[in-house]
């Protein structure tokens, strides 16, 4: 459906004609994000350059009752940026300035289109750390990370994106600009709208600027690798490490299939014969890192590791982490359709959850590889299959529905870090219950009475 000509003309007046795309080819590329099996062509893609332009676009969209889907780099895995009801995709990739980095306030102020890696590098250059570390950091934008409350490899020790958002500038669908929170670490005036907008997946407001907390950069960091017979044994080591009072910076595991594909891509010389690999790492003062790395090494050996090695230098350590960050796309080497999911369970129940996933995979005759953040119980069971095998595609949906139910039964959740989007919306009621879902809908209406912001997602 093409946009009304007056409306398209008004959009062009706001952002410039070259920044409103309506040609079929230009629209086709915005029909999907990184979520397989979700696809819908928008009616226009609009590229604003300022908050003021975002506000004017939203006012127009509300007046014309046209859906608006804000989008960063489109790397999310829950179809949060697929325009399921058509309308406008609001691409924020022109708003890419790092506005400020303050070393004495320990914060940065950025536009939403800055990539997470660019922010992290800018912080590092000032001897600071931007802690959120999602796998897609080189591609993903800070705005997108905040909208989905992205997690990543440092979750156990450092938490997820919401722990670092101090304040937001955001535009409501009515065109009003709000500034929530600010530059302060202590500020309890009013409802915490900053936290509410973080993880709201573009359904309440469009984030146009973020103030994020930084930490002093750790003096030292290191990463090691331990190989185990199976994921169950690796999980036992995880439990023992945490019981020993260590909160490591990294505690990631990969199963045999994941190790094989990561090795094929990164060529790190990983051992391919073990059932599971545990990546353990620590950062902080030199003495702490040395002591904790040694202790983790010992614990892995005591819990039956087949082999334990520690990276000899920072380059090798970074290479290990980089390889781990790409395990999802690397898995697609096994089959051209890759459906990756994201469940979290309490850490002690992780072996049980891994067992349930294996059992479900067998029952539905599917290949499911699993990797994840062992430290925080966040698992990514990933199914690889042939997209032309319709029967298998049907089985995947059923199998993952069971995986989500299993996670909830183990006191877990249907998503730990990817978000709900369109993909998980059918399962949200199972997790939240009817009362909470109703409250979500009332909040949505308070922000967006016309229902134009990212319809078909949270609050719908």
């Amino acid at each position, binding site marked *: 459906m093409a946009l009304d000509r007056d409306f398209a003309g008004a959009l062009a007046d706001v952002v410039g004609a070259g920044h409103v795309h309506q040609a079929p*080819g230009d629209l086709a590329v915005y029909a*999907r994000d990184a979520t397989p099996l979700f696809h819908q062509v928008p009616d226009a893609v609009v*590229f604003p350059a300022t908050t003021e332009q975002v506000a004017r676009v939203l006012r127009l969209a509300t007046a014309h009752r046209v859906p608006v889907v804000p989008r960063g780099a489109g*790397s999310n895995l829950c179809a949060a940026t697929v325009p399921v009801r058509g309308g406008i995709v609001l691409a924020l990739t022109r708003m890419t300035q790092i506005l400020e980095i303050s070393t004495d306030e320990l914060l940065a102020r950025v536009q939403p289109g800055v990539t997470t890696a660019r922010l992290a590098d800018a912080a590092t250059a000032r001897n600071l750390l931007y802690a959120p570390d999602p796998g897609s950091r080189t591609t993903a934008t800070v705005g997108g990370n905040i909208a989905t409350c992205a997690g990543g490899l440092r979750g156990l020790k450092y938490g997820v994106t919401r722990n670092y958002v101090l304040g937001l500038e955001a535009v409501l669908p009515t065109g009003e600009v709000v500034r929530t929170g600010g530059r302060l670490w202590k500020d309890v005036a009013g409802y915490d709208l900053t936290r509410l907008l973080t993880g709201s997946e573009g359904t309440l407001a469009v984030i146009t600027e973020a103030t994020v907390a930084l930490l002093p950069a750790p003096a030292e960091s290191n990463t090691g690798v331990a190989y185990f017979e199976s994921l169950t044994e690796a999980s036992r080591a995880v439990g023992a490490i945490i019981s020993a009072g260590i909160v490591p910076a990294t505690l990631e595991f990969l199963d045999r299939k994941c190790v094989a594909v990561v090795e094929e891509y990164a060529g790190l010389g990983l051992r391919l014969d073990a059932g599971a690999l545990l990546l353990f790492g620590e950062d902080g003062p030199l003495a702490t890192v040395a002591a904790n790395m040694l202790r983790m090494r010992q614990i892995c050996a005591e819990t039956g590791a087949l082999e334990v090695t520690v990276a000899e230098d920072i380059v090798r350590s970074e290479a290990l982490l980089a390889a781990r960050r790409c395990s*999802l*796309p690397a898995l697609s080497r096994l089959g*051209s359709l890759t459906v990756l999911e994201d469940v979290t369970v309490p850490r002690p129940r992780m072996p049980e959850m891994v067992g349930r996933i294996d059992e479900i995979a067998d029952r539905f005759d599917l290949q499911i590889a699993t990797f994840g953040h062992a430290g925080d119980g966040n698992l990514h069971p990933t199914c690889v299959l042939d997209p032309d095998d319709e029967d298998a595609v049907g089985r995947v949906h059923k199998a993952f529905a069971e995986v989500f139910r299993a996670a909830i039964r183990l006191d877990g959740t249907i998503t730990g870090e990817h978000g709900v989007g369109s993909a998980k919306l059918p399962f949200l009621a199972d997790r939240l219950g009817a009362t909470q879902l109703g409250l979500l809908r009332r909040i949505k209406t308070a922000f967006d009475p016309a229902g134009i912001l990212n319809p078909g997602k949270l609050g719908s």
Partner: protein
Amino acid sequence: MIFSKTLLDRCISCGYCLPACPTYAMTGDEASSPRGRISLMRALETGHLEDDDPTLAEQASFCLGCRACEPVCPAGVEYGNLLEEWRDHQWSGRRSPLPARLLMALVSRSWLVRAQGLVRRHARTVTSASGPSLMLGCVERGLFPRVSHAARKLAPGLSVPKRQGCCGALHAHNGDSGTGERMAKSLGDALPGTIVTTSGGCAAHLAAHVGRPRVRELSEYLVEHDHLPSGRLLVDGRVARVALQDSCHLRNGLGISRQPRELIRAVAEYVELPSAGACCGAAGTYSILRPRESGEILSVKIDEIEAAEVDFVVAVNPGCLRQLKTGLRKRGSRVRAVHLAELLVIVPR
């Protein structure tokens, strides 16, 4: 079927390629990213977009073909091959850009390519039955004949057969991969044994069609055969500062980036440019077909070279060398652009 099915299926749209893509960096528009272009190819394949769709036409030519997206792709998508198939379809027959068509017509006539030797004296031809042979290149022997002289001096064992034409990379990158493949194979027949080339683009294209084991790019050959120069290159009595511009196809296609650096380090103070691995905008015929974008990319590169305060910037591909020379001349820079072979022969031994 326009595309080999398995090639398109490989991409899972994760978007890890976006930050590596120079055209995405210019626009921030998904359509000008590798992932976006693959979406366009899929739409073409399934008939959702027409052959004459303007976005398809624009993006097929906007892409540099630098393949920077390939090494960063964890899924192993062979974007370079997809682009060749896409351009074969997009630019079939008369729809291919006129300047590219003219150039292709020139270099596909091997007598014409050889006749360049009458005007620009490249390395003297020396025949041997089994090689390894030095490939003279179609563009390079005309533009930079001194490169083959230098290569012969650095690796005296190379034979230089007389009857050799163009490898066909130009065709493959401009919508005629059939001819490109035929030309590569016939060059493979004309040059027995190992083929040593001083052009990164030719190396990658040849390797794809005559087999990787038969192809050696000069820096790779020199390092493998321990032909490391021993002297020091001096400028005004101090060791020269030298930067490198990678050849995209050499780096991203064949994974060769260490060897040219190693050779430079052996003779000079090596200075890494921040974007040494990113395309300089020459990209085969790109600088002719899209001068504005090519110039924009080059301008950043020249800024970097100036800021690095080097004496020389080294290229390992004739297209890049011409591009850098043009950029430096326009800027009135005192930095000299040379081919790696030329740099190594001026070192006193």
